């Protein structure tokens, strides 16, 4: 009985949702959370590179280690088809991603490689960190330029 009622309300919910977009896929919030964590850790080394805060080898290393692990999280379930900004509410992921998946993945791999370099130099001084931070930022920018829409 309970099952039946749940089922009925799910169907009803789906019908009500029809005129708008499909129900928001939880993958969207999950990947946005992932990017927020990128920025949160990137801000430590980025802040040092820009002179917003003093260089601290240990803090820089921790942030770079975090970024290393964060950029290794498997992306398999974060980008389901139909979660682009033309088909789904609440996302800035441009539909071009799914038309150019190879390029999108290769831009993600560029990020992984740049972060690996950053991890290698994070503890060895501000100049090294500065150059490496710019390289990492360049890989974020390259992907955002092609595949991320403006905020609504």
């Amino acid at each position: 009985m309970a099952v039946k009622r749940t089922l009925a309300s799910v169907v009803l919910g789906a019908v009500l949702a029809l005129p708008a977009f499909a129900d928001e896929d939880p993958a969207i919030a999950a990947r946005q959370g992932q990017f927020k964590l990128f920025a949160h850790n990137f801000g430590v080394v980025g802040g040092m590179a820009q002179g917003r805060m003093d260089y601290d080898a240990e803090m820089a290393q921790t942030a770079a280690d975090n970024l290393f692990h964060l950029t290794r999280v498997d992306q398999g379930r974060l980008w389901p088809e139909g979660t682009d900004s033309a088909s789904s509410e609440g996302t800035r992921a441009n539909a071009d991603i799914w038309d150019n998946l190879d390029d999108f993945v290769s831009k993600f791999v560029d990020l992984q490689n740049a972060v690996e370099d950053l991890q290698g130099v994070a503890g060895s001084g501000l100049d090294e960190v500065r150059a490496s931070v710019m390289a990492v930022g360049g890989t974020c920018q390259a992907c955002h330029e092609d595949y991320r829409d403006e905020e609504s």
Partner: protein
Amino acid sequence: MLRRVVLILVMIGLIAAGALWVLSAPRVPDSDTLARLDGEPERGRDVFLAAGCGSCHMAPGREADPLVMSGGREFVSDFGKFYAPNISPDPEHGIGDWTQDQFITAVMRGVSPGGQHYYPAFPYTAYIRAEPQDIADLHAYMMTLPRDETASRDHDIGFPFNIRRAVGLWKTLFLQEEWVLTDDLTEEEARGRYLVEALAHCAECHTPRNMLGALDSARWMEGAPNPSGRGRIPPIAGEGFTWTAFDISAYLETGFTPEFDVVGGTMAAVVANLQQLESAEREAIAAYLLRLRD
């Protein structure tokens, strides 16, 4: 739809006003003065970067060479689709056989060597405020770029917007050589104003437009709908924008926001250009934007 109908009525009204026809004839600066300027290619590179010519005129492909001005990029507007033409030094398909004064007249007045009006999708509406010497330097620099043989593509726009002469009326109404920010400025702020209002045409994206596609100077830089799709271009003046001078110049240099998000969309190319200039130039832009606050 209503917007389109209104637009068409207004345009037809304007065209029908025969008395205005004479006003629509191209007006150009004195070509002798322009021809005598001595263009300096090295200085021209900085002008090229600040003015962002490459952002529009490079090939559309993802990994296109930023120095090959083959054209082909598409610009969506309320009036139809425009395609950037080939402006490489190729004499047949590009602008290799143009004289310096023809080039300056095109960039600073939106008038072609054949005497026709260009559409303001080409932001001569900003470049009109540039120093002719800078545009002469730009010409000298652009003639050193690679030649390309891609043919320019026709625009995809319907009646009445496809009548170039009508652009002359538009210019009479909206093409403005005066500065938008007219306060007393420090030398740095004045440099910033030159970069922002004359060369880098920040307002073309960050300022909303009226029904005829002209920038609304009452809401200068206060954010605008994105002409080419979803989302909005963020405000960089007014209450919605609270960045410090450092935040602004750091963003223009590194692409990092104060929250360490990283620039994307069409702004990424602006940053990629401006980060190659002297830091004083980015600081001047920041000083100008802060002046828009008071």
